[in-house]
């Protein structure tokens, strides 16, 4: 008996794989524990081997909420030569960049030195990761561009790293995470925004990280699914902080990208921010404009994990509210919640919007048009 049906599903449109796309969230990994050593001062080798990394959560091996798949990655993405998923450029090219015609791939390295309690180690690892991105990735494949990883809890050190990399064409953005010791709008992070704006680099705020706070405002939840869904709420709050602290009033040229936290919540958060600001603006006189306008002007959104309502007209309405010109396609390769480029957008999208979604918006934002 041959049975094939997808009850109630509409056929996904197939992007001809010959059309070039941008992938604005790729996660390169280290193949071995010592792969960063060439880029790290020797004192840190011994330090790491003796004391290890101390993040703002208790576990030294693996995450506190176990993932859905090993390394949170697709099981078919283990490179044949060994090493974890995402650690082999040649396999990434073969499995993803080439067949999906990725013309622009933005690297967002995770599990680096961000979110560590030892700020000196954090800064050293950040610099090492940035050297590694150039050496192993961006200088080997011109389609790939890196993100400047910084010691996120040490404003001056982070600013110094950004200034060091400013003007280097290997990098197109600065990378931060959404969960930090304080909400991202707080002034301890202002040196980062100043340096990024000065360098003409947007800031990618990627979901995740640990800052020592419970990951909900009512304590620590039980399950991984709560953490995964909760990235949406953490990103909302981090963005609200950035807007309400007046970061964009101070840095009008700065742009930010919300990475891997969804975008469907953008309209309702904007409406709530506007309504609250209308009432409470006396408390925050430095916020000069309705928050929805600030968000509209300064914020971009990567598409993965793509919102997936039952009715595609609902999806299209939400995209209209967010703006077709603000979305940046991403797969999150090699992670398990990967969005396949040929399946992710339903039929019924104009060519202009499709091209904006898959490539043009990213090229414009990252200065590669």
């Amino acid at each position, binding site marked *: *008996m*041959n*049975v*094939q*049906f*997808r*009850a*109630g*599903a509409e056929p996904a449109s197939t992007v001809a794989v010959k059309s070039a796309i941008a992938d604005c969230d790729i996660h390169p990994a280290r193949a071995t524990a010592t792969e960063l050593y060439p880029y790290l001062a020797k004192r840190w080798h011994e330090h790491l081997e003796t004391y290890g990394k101390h993040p703002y959560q208790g576990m030294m091996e693996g995450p506190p909420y176990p993932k*859905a*798949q090993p390394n949170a990655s*697709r*099981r*078919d993405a283990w490179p044949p030569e060994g090493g974890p998923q995402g650690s082999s450029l040649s396999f990434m090219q073969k499995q993803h960049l080439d067949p999906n015609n990725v013309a622009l791939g933005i690297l967002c390295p995770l599990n680096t030195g961000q979110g560590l309690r030892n700020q000196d180690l954090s800064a050293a690892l950040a610099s090492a990761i940035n050297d590694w991105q150039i050496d192993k990735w961006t200088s080997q494949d011109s389609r790939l561009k890196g993100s400047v990883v910084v010691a996120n809890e040490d404003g001056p050190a982070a600013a110094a790293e950004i200034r060091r990399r400013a003007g280097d064409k290997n990098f197109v953005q600065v990378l931060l995470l959404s969960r930090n010791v304080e909400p991202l709008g707080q002034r301890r992070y202002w040196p980062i925004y100043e340096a990024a704006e000065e360098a003409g680099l947007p800031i990618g705020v990627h979901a995740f990280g640990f800052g020592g706070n419970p990951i909900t405002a009512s304590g620590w939840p039980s399950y991984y699914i709560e953490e995964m869904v909760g990235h949406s709420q953490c990103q909302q709050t981090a963005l609200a902080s950035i807007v309400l602290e007046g970061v964009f009033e101070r840095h009008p040229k700065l742009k930010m990208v919300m990475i891997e936290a969804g975008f469907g919540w953008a309209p309702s958060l904007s409406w709530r921010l506007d309504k609250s600001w209308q009432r409470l603006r006396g408390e925050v006189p430095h916020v000069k404009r309705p928050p929805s306008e600030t968000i509209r002007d300064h914020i971009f959104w990567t598409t993965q994990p793509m919102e997936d309502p039952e009715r595609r007209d609902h999806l299209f309405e939400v995209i209209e509210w967010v703006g077709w010109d603000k979305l940046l396609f991403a797969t999150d390769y090699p992670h*398990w*919640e*990967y*969005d*396949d480029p*040929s*399946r*992710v957008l339903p039929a019924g999208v104009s060519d202009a919007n499709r091209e904006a979604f898959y490539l043009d918006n990213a090229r414009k934002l990252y200065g590669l048009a």
Partner: protein
Amino acid sequence: MTRHVIAPVEELPPGTRKFLTIDERPIAVFNIKGEFFGLLNRCPHQGAALCEGPLIGLAQSSDPGEIEYTRLGEIIRCPWHGWEFDIRTGQSYCDPKRFRARAYPVNVEPGASVVKGPYVAETLAVSVESDYVVVDL
């Protein structure tokens, strides 16, 4: 329908699977405790190589905290998004029904305790003839 000989039975002991292509279709044949089942190696969700996923059991619960874990080795998890599919029938398990009698509208087949999810992986008829595993395609 054409019959394709896959392999001698001893090449496919219980708990193993064999990947092959027939008429350009990627398929996998599984030996589940002595019985054979075939699946198209393409997840109906986003097209991943479904049959490369790990085999697990079926987790069900009639009360939070209590887990009944049965049918070990008969459920495959897609290597991408982890959706669970029954090897025997290709049925997905992402929309199960409640396990207590309740009155609200769901689709239930008589005798089944789990409602079928909307996705079904394509299955193929597999039989054993004279110690050979045979697929009808």
